[in-house]
């Protein structure tokens, strides 16, 4: 048996490869957005697609997000599978009406006769030193809209696997790409991509027994680091990567919390009205008698995303996660 030499790849490269392979496999797949063609996207995630497949398959559109997504709706009505790139999280807002009033509802409106297999790729989150409007965590808006899948990879293998699944899905998928992980690397073979769990399944990234950290996207590496650091305090933390906010995997999350009895939800998005509130409520409703302490949240502060020179104070870091773990009423056990 020979082992294939596996070189490290970045998340951005895995995303590019996912689109490339999807376009090669299905002529209905069309990539469109601002600067996605000749330039290859401002993050170079669509690099090479226009050269390989032509500008009709990877199209530089006019600079108008509602128009891009609205046109994608019409293209999907005619049997195409558009993959739309929104350049930055906060620049996706002009497309909200199309997303909420049409993309999320067309299948339901037409009793399943007109599904819209559209993937909306949104680079999201902070930590890259971006100026205003370049670092939002907008997942709560999407989660609150029935009819959308909301997916976010945190690993290189998931970036490829989940994006392939999103493009193949007959439902619209908001695909949130943690932009500060674009350059994160992992051993990953583009010619033999790792199989990943389907959209809708969470994955235990680190097994543990003391408490569960529930997280996704850009906060996964923070939680992994916190779990390592917690060993010094005598805590063996389990880390659950949600991967998909909608559909939400109650089963995996609750199984973990029932084992550990304690949970902290970690995300960059604001805490008030953010995903953590929904997740904490779901855990409390389902695992109340297994809980040794209230479910805590470590989230971005409830303020407009800070200027880059102050963002490190806003973003949940290892220390803030460990402080939350320390507040999980351990005294009661002694």
């Amino acid at each position: 048996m020979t082992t294939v030499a596996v070189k490290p790849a970045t998340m951005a490269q895995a995303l590019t490869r996912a689109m490339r392979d999807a376009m090669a496999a299905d002529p209905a797949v069309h990539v469109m957005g601002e600067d996605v063609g000749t330039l290859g996207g401002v993050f170079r995630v669509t690099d090479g697609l226009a050269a390989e497949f032509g500008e009709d398959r990877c199209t530089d559109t006019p600079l108008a997000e509602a128009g891009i997504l609205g046109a994608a709706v019409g293209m999907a009505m005619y049997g195409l599978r558009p993959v739309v790139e929104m350049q930055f999280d906060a620049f996706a807002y002009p497309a909200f009406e199309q997303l909420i009033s049409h993309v999320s509802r067309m299948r339901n409106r037409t009793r399943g006769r007109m599904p819209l297999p559209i993937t909306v790729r949104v680079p999201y989150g902070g930590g890259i030193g971006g100026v205003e409007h370049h670092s939002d965590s907008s997942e709560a808006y999407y989660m609150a809209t029935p009819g959308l899948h909301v997916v976010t990879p945190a690993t290189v293998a998931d970036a490829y696997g989940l994006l392939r699944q999103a493009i193949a899905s007959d439902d619209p998928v908001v695909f949130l790409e943690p932009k500060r992980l674009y350059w994160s690397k992992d051993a990953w073979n583009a010619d033999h991509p790792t199989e990943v769990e389907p959209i809708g399944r969470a994955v235990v990234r680190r097994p543990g027994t003391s408490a569960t950290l529930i997280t996704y996207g850009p906060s996964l590496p923070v939680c992994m680091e916190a779990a390592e650091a917690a060993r010094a305090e005598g805590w063996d933390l389990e880390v659950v990567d949600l991967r998909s906010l909608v559909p939400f995997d109650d089963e995996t999350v609750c199984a973990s919390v029932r084992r550990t009895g304690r949970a902290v939800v970690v995300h960059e998005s604001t805490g008030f009205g953010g995903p953590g509130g929904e997740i904490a409520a779901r855990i409390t409703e389902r695992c109340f008698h297994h809980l040794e302490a209230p479910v805590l949240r470590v989230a971005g502060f409830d303020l407009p995303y800070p200027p880059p020179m102050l963002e490190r104070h806003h973003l949940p870091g290892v220390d803030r996660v460990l402080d939350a773990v320390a507040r999980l009423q351990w005294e009661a056990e002694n």
Partner: protein
Amino acid sequence: MTVMEQRGAYRPSPPPAWQPRTDPAPLLPDAEPYRVLGTDTAAKADPELLRRLYAQVVRGRRYNTQATALTKQGRLAVYPSSTGQEACEVAAALALEERDWLFPSYRDTLAVVARGVDPVETLTLLRGDWHNGYDPHTHHVAPLSTPLATQLPHAVGLAHAARLKGDDVVALAMVGDGGTSEGDFHEALNFAAVWQAPVVFLVQNNGFAISVPLAKQTAAPSLAHKAVGYGMPGRLVDGNDAVAVHEVLADAVRRARAGGGPTLVEAVTYRMEAHTNADDATRYREDDEVEAWRRHDPLQLLERELTARGLLDEAAIDAVRQDAEAMAADLRERMNQDPRLDPMDLFDHVYAEPTAQLREQRALLGTELAAEQDDQEGDPR
């Protein structure tokens, strides 16, 4: 050599010569709305087309009065009437081939029915038993769009996709004068022109966006003039002249199909009724104005032409009216039956496969419905 000397030697090279990217002159609309009926050119209109337009306009008006009556009887949640605008509605449907697509707004039920969609299924949204009643693929008609102008980029995308696939399909998108103020109107027209997509935009300028008159909506010379800014032709037409609207739309459809790109058509018409049954038009307009438009009625314009040319006798008028009455009777009968509702349907089409959460909620509603059923069966009354 000093810096000053260097600057003295510098000669600016002029930028590349500027020229307009498109010659605007051929894109400009006519100074007056284009008319056929009542003019010398009317004599050239095809008798068969005149008869078809007439029959459809008569049916359309009857459909409006019947749907309005059903609303007053509580059978429809709301009905936005297009009485006075039947010429636009009918001409839009007749200007298209079967393979083409129509993108209607909520007031465009007549165009949808004229396209062949079942009159009852067309009213599903307005009856309120579902958000859309017909299969869009059967007659190539998108669902009635309630959010203004949002259907226009869909038409552009569909037409663009068809062209990419090598199909000679044209999309016709309908919008009102108020809708032209929306951002999606701008973005759709811009995309269509840049992509040279085979789309025709029909703006029915009926004078009002609910209560707000056009003067408060735009300062453009005409809505058709807006086309020029996008680099596409704008056409201005009398929206109550079915023959003129049909001719202008058919020209634009032909041009789009031949690869000539999009056209914006402004049809000047008038909404004879209030915005919907829930609106009171006397609060914002004068009866004199309504009366003036009543004398420029799309149905009478057609009838006058047909009669003058001997193409329509009493028997023919009767036949058309009977056809419209039969349609109204059928509509009445079927709309007076309660729609069959299954609350469990609510969960079935949100996603291709319901999520675990939706399955739980479906089960909850199922339990509630079973309890209701038990209560009713156990009720001695």
